[in-house]
């Protein structure tokens, strides 16, 4: 061993210059390979996205060309006469996701604030772990649970009360008009709310804990209440992260398929009442793709394209909103 080292040391002095050059060359080569590989990976993502958009557009074209704008506004979905309108699934997708966010955002932020600002130390871990576990439950489990437990419970115990309570209030009495169906827009929204809750909570909690303690302590020091600290220090400091979490949740709600298919009722009708069955884009595709052909397939692909567009609009709106907020805050 030692002999060999000696030997090599001798050689090093002889050809150290050329060795250094070759080592450098190796570095350059390795660097280049690394750069090329990461570049390829990035390009693959772009190509994939382009290919998906491309095949969706090509597949959807016959339906969009035939029905034109009425594809968006018509509620009819007749597979025999091949008359297709996407209004019912688009309505169901947007409303169920919107309602889910309406429920999940305040609750999720509430949990996150409680966990980071107010919670006694010994409770933090169990609640935190519970939320992470909730995020790990597969959507089919939510679907089965919703179908067997939540939906019957809502129909028997909650919906009659909602109908009774909102009956005298104009406007809301159409939104909550009876009879309540177990499989309904309302049930689907509630399941979605539960499903996106852990995303919003987990991300908000993580970004809340990045607020420098010195900021909060300073605020407390000048006599702020916990509410004022959250409102004026924590939320403004973390809003980009929070909006990110909300958007991730919204993304999941818009595209969720399995759980929603179980509890939404799969009805191509737009009912005024939230307690009536409805359908979403992803549920329609999941139910009907298998036996579709020709124009029917094209209409379903056009539905997929609509979901793509809706998601894109939502994300773009979020970006614009964030930019506005930042300008206002003058950061």
């Amino acid at each position: 061993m030692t002999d060999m080292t000696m030997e090599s040391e001798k050689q090093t002095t002889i050809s150290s210059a050329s060795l250094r050059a070759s080592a450098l060359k190796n570095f350059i080569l390795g660097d280049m390979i690394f750069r090329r590989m990461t570049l390829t990976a990035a390009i693959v993502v772009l190509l994939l996205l382009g290919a998906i958009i491309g095949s969706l557009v090509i597949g959807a074209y016959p339906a969009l060309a035939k029905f034109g704008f009425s594809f968006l506004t018509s509620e009819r979905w007749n597979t025999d006469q091949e008359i297709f309108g996407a209004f019912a699934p688009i309505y169901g997708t947007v409303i169920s996701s919107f309602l889910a966010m309406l429920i999940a955002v305040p609750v999720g932020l509430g949990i996150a604030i409680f966990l980071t600002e107010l919670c006694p130390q010994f409770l933090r871990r169990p609640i935190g772990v519970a939320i992470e576990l909730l995020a790990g439950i597969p959507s089919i489990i939510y679907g089965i649970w919703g179908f067997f437990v939540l939906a019957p419970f809502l129909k028997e115990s909650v919906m009659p009360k909602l109908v009774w309570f909102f009956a005298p209030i104009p406007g809301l009495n159409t939104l909550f008009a009876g009879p309540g169906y177990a499989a309904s827009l309302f049930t689907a929204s509630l399941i979605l709310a539960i499903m996106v809750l852990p995303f919003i909570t987990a991300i908000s909690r993580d970004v809340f804990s990045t607020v420098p303690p010195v900021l909060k302590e300073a605020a407390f020091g000048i006599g702020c209440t916990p509410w004022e600290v959250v409102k004026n220090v924590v939320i403004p400091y973390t809003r980009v992260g929070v909006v990110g979490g909300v958007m991730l949740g919204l993304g999941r709600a818009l595209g969720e398929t399995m759980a929603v298919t179980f509890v939404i009722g799969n009805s191509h009708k737009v009912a005024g009442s939230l307690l009536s069955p409805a359908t979403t884009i992803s549920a329609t595709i999941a139910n009907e793709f298998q036996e579709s052909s020709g124009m029917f397939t094209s209409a379903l692909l056009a539905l997929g394209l609509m979901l793509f567009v809706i998601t894109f609009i939502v994300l773009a709106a979020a970006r614009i909103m964030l930019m506005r907020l930042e300008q206002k805050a003058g950061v």
Partner: protein
Amino acid sequence: MQFSISRVAMAVALVATSTTTVLAADISGAGATFPYPLYAKWAENYKKETGNGLNYQSIGSGGGIKQIIAKTVTFGATDAPMTPEDQAKNGLVMWPMVMGGIVAVVNLDGIKSGDLVIDGPTLGDIFSGKITKWDDAALKKLNPKATLPSDAITVVHRADGSGTTFNFTNYLDKVSAEWHGKAGVSQSPEWPVGVGSKGNEGVAGTVGQTKGSIGYVEYAYAKQQKLTYANMINKDRKTVTPTLPAFQAAASNANWEKAVGYYEVLTNEPGAESWPMTNATFILMYKEPADKVASAEAIKFFDWAFTNGGKTAEELDYIPMPANVVALVRKTWAADIKK
């Protein structure tokens, strides 16, 4: 953004896998959910006797037709018979495999199987959304003794294209002006009301879960899931209970010798004993199969089922095809399917 991409990619992957699930060794078929309990049982027995397996995907009649046309399976199964013209156009042979009955199932407190009587027009009114409450006058008139709640009716129908739906709507279309005006005969009509579920299994499950609901399923599913079925008033104005003899009475009206391409629908048949929603379920295969070995294996299985499967069928409340029809079908195989 990433989210929607992953969804779309998943959907694409799903479609890809669903059309390529052909196993090399087994006979592969896909289609109707209606005869699935029986085909599964036959396959089990056949495997015991011969060692050959059957891979049958119960994806609905619409799916079965689509897959046989796409040539991803050796045979397709459908409850909605393909018209002789379509058979010729696609180069397919169709024959009836077994018959069965569709029943209306309900979920009502205090109502047991057979307690409730419904006639065709009333059933049509319920599925058209004209009758919305269980204590509607029409239902009360048919059931003077039953205590019907004033609850709303939840109609449960299929969310996928279905041969069971084809036969059910074929019946409603014949007997209910309301249904005829609103929807008509179809494997997946524009449902005026109700919630959709996938497959006979899905409808059975949803009705079992939902108080105040009514749906329609193949009789074996109602029996398996212990659902409450309703008695029906048939074409001869007689009240009938869904039993094997009632299905047989209706099936005896079929005239298979005369039916071109075995196109025959068995709803609303005459006869005092006849169950009004009876139907045959069919097999579709290519006249000139690409894989002749697989095709021959499939025919062997069906031949075995015709010879040995009758008892199993009756145990599960399906009606085996009569001997003369079986002889006819065997002739068709010999004449039309290239070996």
